[in-house]
């Protein structure tokens, strides 16, 4: 007779009165498969921990986003936000789906070019562009989004010195009725700074004002903020048309759409509070259409949506290293996924599921990573089944920012795989080795013996 699966025996004290902050009836279903492939098998083949991306989910997300906007507005362009995830394979999926590249550094610009994106399909944001980067972008016809007056003057000088013309937009910050109010990037709308920048650009024949850009913040949970932003940019566009008889080609609404991850400290789950693409699309397109811009001069709406279209395509699977009981009686798990790999665990209460079924009884558990650092906490408190050493789990919605902000800290970083639409797996970033890390180091002669 086949033996039964052994679940670690548990006993949980029942507390009368009000439910705990976890409420009642929490269920933690197993996540055995990703895109039809067994997670335990993937870990066996590629090692643990393991980042797993789904090509199908990425393609569906970008198609859903485009669908939400194109049914409401005639001209829409998505530009993939490289800083959200600049793994080449991931970027190329978005480019295959028609996305341009939105980059914020010379490094990202080079990555986009290496991914086959032409300069005229690159949006160059960011406050720290160098003279050489500005020249290259201008020569290749990229859209340079000017962040501050020093950059405006630098670009003007670069164009004059090299006799080139640059296609530019200005980044505009504004009050859209939300907190925090982002004013460190771009020129302010309310105090007239944006107009000052526009006047200077329009007076310079080597700078072609192509568009207006804003990025109102991140993880924005109200569509009305976008309505206000789109409305203000449209007013600016209408005023430019009136004053200069110049019609801008695009309004770039930046990124910031929320994903379904739950922010730390949020009372309700992100699954319940996140807006749909339709909510954002409705707010933005109606604001532009209802503005003073003439219908035959409607600009293209550019979206730099990152998080909301990549987060749920990424997962990290891992293994339990140890069980512990803390002095206050709570259970602790030490797992092989730490904050070095999951930077977003500082912001989110990530969803974590075992890969195998369990009896249903849950314990209050702290999940620690493997780093010898006190900050290495993946979840400070969640109701979780009694996993044993060696058992596996999946942390979902980890596709945004982790593979760009992760740290080579204390240990090396693991394999990243992509499951394609035919359910074939591909390593898209090899696990690091110590050679990768030390190859850039050098030891002075007097220390080499």
């Amino acid at each position: 007779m086949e033996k039964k699966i052994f679940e670690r025996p548990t006993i949980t004290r029942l507390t009368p009165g009000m439910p705990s902050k976890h409420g009642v009836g929490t269920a933690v279903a197993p996540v055995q498969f990703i895109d039809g492939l067994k997670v335990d098998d993937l870990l066996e083949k590629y090692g643990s921990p393991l980042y797993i991306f789904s090509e199908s989910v990425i393609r569906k997300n970008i198609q859903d986003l485009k669908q939400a906007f194109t049914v409401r507005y005639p001209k829409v362009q998505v530009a993939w936000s490289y800083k959200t995830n600049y793994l080449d394979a991931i970027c190329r999926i978005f480019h295959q789906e028609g996305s341009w590249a939105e980059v914020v550094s010379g490094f990202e610009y080079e990555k986009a070019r290496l991914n086959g994106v032409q300069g005229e399909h690159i949006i160059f944001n960011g406050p720290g562009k160098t003279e050489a980067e500005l020249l290259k972008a201008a020569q290749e016809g990229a859209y340079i989004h000017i962040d501050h007056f020093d950059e405006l003057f630098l670009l003007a000088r670069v164009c004059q010195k090299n006799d080139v013309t640059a296609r530019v937009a200005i980044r505009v910050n504004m009050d859209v009725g939300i907190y925090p109010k982002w004013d460190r990037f771009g020129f302010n709308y309310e105090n007239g700074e944006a107009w000052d920048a526009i006047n200077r650009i329009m007076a310079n024949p080597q700078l072609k004002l192509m568009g207006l850009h804003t990025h109102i913040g991140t993880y924005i949970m109200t569509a009305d903020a976008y309505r206000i932003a789109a409305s203000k940019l449209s007013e600016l566009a209408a005023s430019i048309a009136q004053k200069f008889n110049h019609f801008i080609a695009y309004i770039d609404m930046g990124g910031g759409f929320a994903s379904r991850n739950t922010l730390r400290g949020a009372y309700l789950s992100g699954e319940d509070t996140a807006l749909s693409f339709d909510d954002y699309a409705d707010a933005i397109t109606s604001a532009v259409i209802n503005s003073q811009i003439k219908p035959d001069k409607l600009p293209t709406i550019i979206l730099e949506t990152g998080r909301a279209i990549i987060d749920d395509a990424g997962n990290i699977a891992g293994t339990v290293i140890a069980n512990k009981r803390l002095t206050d009686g709570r259970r602790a798990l030490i797992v092989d996924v730490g904050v070095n790999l999951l930077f977003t665990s500082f912001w989110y209460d990530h969803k974590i599921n075992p890969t195998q079924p369990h009896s249903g009884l849950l314990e209050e558990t702290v999940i620690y990573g493997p780093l010898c650092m006190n900050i290495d906490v993946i979840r400070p408190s969640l109701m979780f089944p009694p996993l044993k050493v060696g058992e596996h789990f999946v942390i979902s919605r980890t596709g945004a920012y982790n593979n760009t902000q992760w740290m080579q800290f204390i240990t090396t970083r693991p394999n990243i795989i992509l499951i394609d639409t035919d359910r074939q797996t591909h390593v898209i970033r090899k696990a690091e080795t110590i050679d990768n890390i030390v190859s850039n180091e050098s030891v002075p002669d007097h220390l080499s013996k």
Partner: protein
Amino acid sequence: MKINQSIAISENGFVFNPITGDSFTLNNTGIQILTMLKSGKTIDDIKEVIAEEYDVDDLVLERYLQDFFSDLKLNSLITEG
């Protein structure tokens, strides 16, 4: 190791300690082990039964029984001796 014989264990894993008034829930393996303990089985007997029935090696079983017994002790359901 002595179990507090006054505790009540229901079939579906509800445990009541009439001395302290505390109540608890057990998972399936927890029910089985605590019930055997209450019926007077020794730890070695328990290990034998569990190893026979479940896919678990001796070291893992030892590790988690030790963990479970320390939880029972922490909750005053068993005492040393």
